[in-house]
């Protein structure tokens, strides 16, 4: 069960960090038009199509003692990030980025622009407009974003294996645990863990659909249709 707790902890950290990064990023991509925007959009979407091993490989290099992220970490904490929980978080944030940003963009873009104009004309700053109008009206999109990135991080395998290796209690997540058990023919153990992940994923996705239906928005549907 250690591996499952580790997975949940990782997923929770990653979705919290992603929400903080994803909101301004999605706001920027949804409401600003500038020439190089398509490049940033492509970069954000890249993890959707990239093999996890490719992403994992480059992240591993970046985290290593000679990589830029690794050097920063060495300078700040006197230790590298490869094969640590911090490294897993860093890699997972990149890997799940589109799962946070895209539902947020869809939700921000669906907003009636006249509401934002009205807010500005009533003297509100961009920050106040965001907090008082965009945020509450994008709640279904935000829930979708958090839940999807949580579920996606929970189930990741390739990136974690590349970056974290397989250290019990540190980087051995549930999906890697399942792989391990199957390798060593422990099918009962593997099945138990797999079933737990299956149930969590199902519950989480039901929650997304349920929230979106209740609030009457089709953010998730519009995102899925992109």
């Amino acid at each position, binding site marked *: 069960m250690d591996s499952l707790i580790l997975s949940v902890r990782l997923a929770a950290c990653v979705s919290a960090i992603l929400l903080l990064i994803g909101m301004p990023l999605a706001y920027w991509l949804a409401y600003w038009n500038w020439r190089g925007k398509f490049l940033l959009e492509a970069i954000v979407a890249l993890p959707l199509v990239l093999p996890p091993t490719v992403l994992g490989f480059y992240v591993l290099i970046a985290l290593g003692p000679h990589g830029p992220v690794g050097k920063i970490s060495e300078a700040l904490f006197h230790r590298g990030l490869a094969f640590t929980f911090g490294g897993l978080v860093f890699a997972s944030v990149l890997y799940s980025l589109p799962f946070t940003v895209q539902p947020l963009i869809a939700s921000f873009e669906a907003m009636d622009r006249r*509401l934002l104009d009205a807010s500005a004309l*009533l*003297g509100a700053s961009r920050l106040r407009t965001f907090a008082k109008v965009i945020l509450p009206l994008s709640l279904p999109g935000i829930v979708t974003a958090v839940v999807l990135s949580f579920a996606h991080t929970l189930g990741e395998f390739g990136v974690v294996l590349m970056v974290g290796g397989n250290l019990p209690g540190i980087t051995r997540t549930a999906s890697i645990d399942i792989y391990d058990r199957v390798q060593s023919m422990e099918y009962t153990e593997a099945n138990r863990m797999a079933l737990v992940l299956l149930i969590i994923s199902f519950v989480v996705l039901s929650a997304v659909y349920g929230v979106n239906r209740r609030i009457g928005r089709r953010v998730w549907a519009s995102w899925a249709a992109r």
Partner: protein
Amino acid sequence: MGLVGSEINPPVLKARLQKARSGATHPSFVLDVALEIPSGITIVFGPSGAGKSTLLDCIAGLLKPDGGGIEINGEVLLEVQQRIDVPPAKRKIAYVFQSLALFPHMTVEQNVAYGLADLPAPQRDSRVKSMLEAFRVQQLALRKANEISGGEQQRVALARSLATSPQVLLLDEPLTALDEGLKKSIMEDLRRWNAAQNIPILYVTHSRAEVDALGERVIVLDQGKIISTGTPHEVLDAPRRSSLAQASGFENLFSGVVVELREADGVMRVRLVKGACEIETPLGHAALGTTVRLAIRAGDILLATERPHGLSARNVTAGRIISLQQRGTMFIAQVAADAGGAVVFTVHLTLGAKRALELEVDRPVWLVIKTYSCHVLED
């Protein structure tokens, strides 16, 4: 062109704006206007795609004009050449959109309080209360904005934008969807509110009926240009330009010379250049002896088979029908008003009138035209 009622009130809002629009969502045109708007209601009238909403968006700062400037009470909000561009949040301009854009997740009270974040709570509460009362929606204070009727939403939208004590109010076809009674009562509340505040209100509409009902100063906008300004009567019934006259359905246009001014009666007599016909018209700005253009609607001319008497109409002229054409359920008669046939009036008749009067080509008739049906266009 562009001065509206400045002799009554000094202009508060001055704007010169150029903005090219093109695209799939709206027709292409170049907005190019100069306005000086005094306090009180000014109507911006024009067909869809004339640039009315673009004009309001530029004034509010939601659209960036290509050139020009805006000032309110002497304070410069925009001067494109000097790169001055005060953002919408700091312009103190209230703007009620056609869609109203009430915040659907907030109560009526929260909507109205939205623009008052800087006020201390007690003052804010009392301002909200008085705005809700002024627009008679106090009983809805705790309802969600998307759960009240269209007319109520309209009132809340006005209360919300006026709560911030703006210097100018822009209204983009806000009442189009409402029935007449509701429209009137809301406008009365707005007028009552503005009697105390006395700010300029720009009211955009494409509805001729609304212009007549509001009866204020009008600016006529077409294809991005101001083509006329004045009172609804002056602008829409007596357009100053022949092109507009034709566009507004004046079938009869004549050149004439002012031969007599009777200022006490508020009328003047105009002798048509061609032919010997004289017509009494309302007093215009034209001086004695100047040439003016007369515009008369074909539907405003009566025909009689005998010389009429006991009529209020001041223009009674003998004539002869030279042609009659049926157009649907209407007859179009050409009537020569003198022997030479130099002055020909176009007259619209119903089928019944033609039958009852037994009108035929060559038949002598009397033309009857009210003084106020004769519109003077000053070239």
